[in-house]
């Protein structure tokens, strides 16, 4: 079943035609990745799904329901959570408070505590730093917190915008390991990455975005072998 379906989405962003009619599908329990150069429209796609930027035309369906133009808050409540680019943790709040914010829309105390435990199992470092102000965490820890915070909303679809950006190679590996772990637990993931090699490696299916248009698509491994993709995004001739 298709969890998310985008049909012919157009977005204008600061006077630029940022998305020129893209269509894509995210099936349940899969990792889908969107790769492309800077400014290709990857972040804009995710922001449009959450209605942080308005769609000029086109449709976005989530679990069969048209969510185009719904307020961000309602979209999040339906089960789509975005780990935004640059982490955007609340640096003035403690680690614990950040995680509580992730669960803001939820009322099931028992479930929240259960998920909190789960997040601490995935990221023991966060447990150690539970009462620390988030702004004092290292870059890697902040990324863990951003992912943990997103998980606290118990999303049906987790979208991640460049989770490995600006991290040391060892931490990049760690982030991808975590993404795989979360996925194995049954999470549907839409992933944007500059690190196209790693992203295509773990993705079930990938889309290549070029200046607002999808130019290529296919199973992750196939794309990774594609000559064009290799040349443009994988740094291999």
């Amino acid at each position: 079943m298709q969890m998310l379906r985008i049909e012919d989405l157009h977005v204008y962003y600061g006077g630029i035609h940022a998305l020129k009619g893209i269509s894509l599908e995210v099936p349940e329990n899969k990792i889908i990745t969107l790769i492309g150069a800077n400014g290709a429209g990857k972040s804009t796609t995710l922001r449009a799904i959450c209605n942080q930027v308005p769609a000029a035309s086109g449709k976005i369906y989530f679990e069969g329901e048209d969510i185009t133009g719904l307020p961000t808050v309602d979209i999040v409540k339906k089960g789509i959570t975005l780990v935004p680019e640059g982490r955007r943790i609340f640096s003035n709040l403690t680690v614990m408070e950040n995680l509580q914010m992730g669960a803001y829309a939820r009322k099931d105390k028992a479930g929240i505590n259960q998920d909190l435990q789960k997040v601490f199992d995935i990221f023991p470092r966060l447990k150690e730093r539970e009462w620390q102000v988030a702004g004092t965490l290292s870059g890697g820890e902040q990324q863990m917190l951003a992912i943990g915070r997103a998980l606290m909303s118990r999303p049906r679809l987790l979208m991640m915008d460049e989770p490995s950006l600006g991290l040391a190679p060892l931490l990049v590996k760690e982030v991808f390991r975590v993404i795989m772990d979360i996925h194995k637990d049954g999470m549907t993931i839409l992933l944007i990455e500059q690190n196209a090699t790693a992203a295509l490696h773990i993705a079930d299916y990938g889309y290549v975005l070029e200046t607002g248009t999808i130019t290529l698509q296919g199973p992750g491994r196939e794309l990774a072998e594609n000559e064009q993709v290799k040349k443009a995004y994988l740094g291999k001739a």
Partner: protein
Amino acid sequence: MSLDVFLQNVANSITLGSLYALIAIGYTMVYGIIRLINFAHADLLMVAAYIAFYGILVFTLPWYVSFAIAIVLTTLLGVSIERVAYRPLRSAPRISVLISAIGVSFLLENLGIVALGARPKPFPRPEDLVWNIQIGNISFLSLTIIIPVVTIILLIMVTYMVKKTKMGIAMRAVSRDFETSSLMAVDVNKVIAATFAVGSSLAAVGGIMWSMQYPQVDPLMGVFPGLKCFIAAVMGGIGSIPGAMIGGFVLGICEVMLVGFMPELSGYRDAFAFVVLILILLFRPGGILGENVVEKV
């Protein structure tokens, strides 16, 4: 100065400091969340005082009913001002919202003059709340105790709310990042409205206690206390709630002591606050507890 007079001054300064602290919180909370100096905040004192005044005198309600109505209506007014005058300008440049705030302030003041008359009216002090206390040679009003006690209770409540409750955490999150807050399914407008509600209700309590302590009401009564509480908030570090509390007390105490120790300077009482403001802005622009952060572009 004799000990009696000194103690008298201490009592007065704490009372004034309490009132400043209570009102300064409204400025700092609103600034913290939408980066606006809410000039209309000062006039909420006046509105609360007038509602209490009419409740007691015209509608002959018991003081507590009248005070309760004044607090509720003032809170509603504070929230409505945000809804009508600030929210439509959410994505406008900050200066537009500031101008809107000044406009609301002028509107309330002049509406007050037209509708209620510019002449100050004596505020009816409820006998249940205001009586004389005599200890040795010092005599003081019960308000000297009531005002700081009420203030401290409210300050503790606000601190608890902001630190521990879900809404308080959301307020701090929204103050840092609107967009990401909405990604957490936080209704940003609701959180901002709640912030205005808290600030306005504190201003209402402050206004009522102010008009009991200095028992008269007039349509411009909020202007000077408002400016001074704004200074107190800046002094403590605008955006910081403990800062506003400290700033309020420090300013109130300094002001009364200045007049107490140097009566010949009492004419400069109001000027003193502005001198403090200038010094703070020159030497520690972030305030006592504020972070001296570089403005983000």
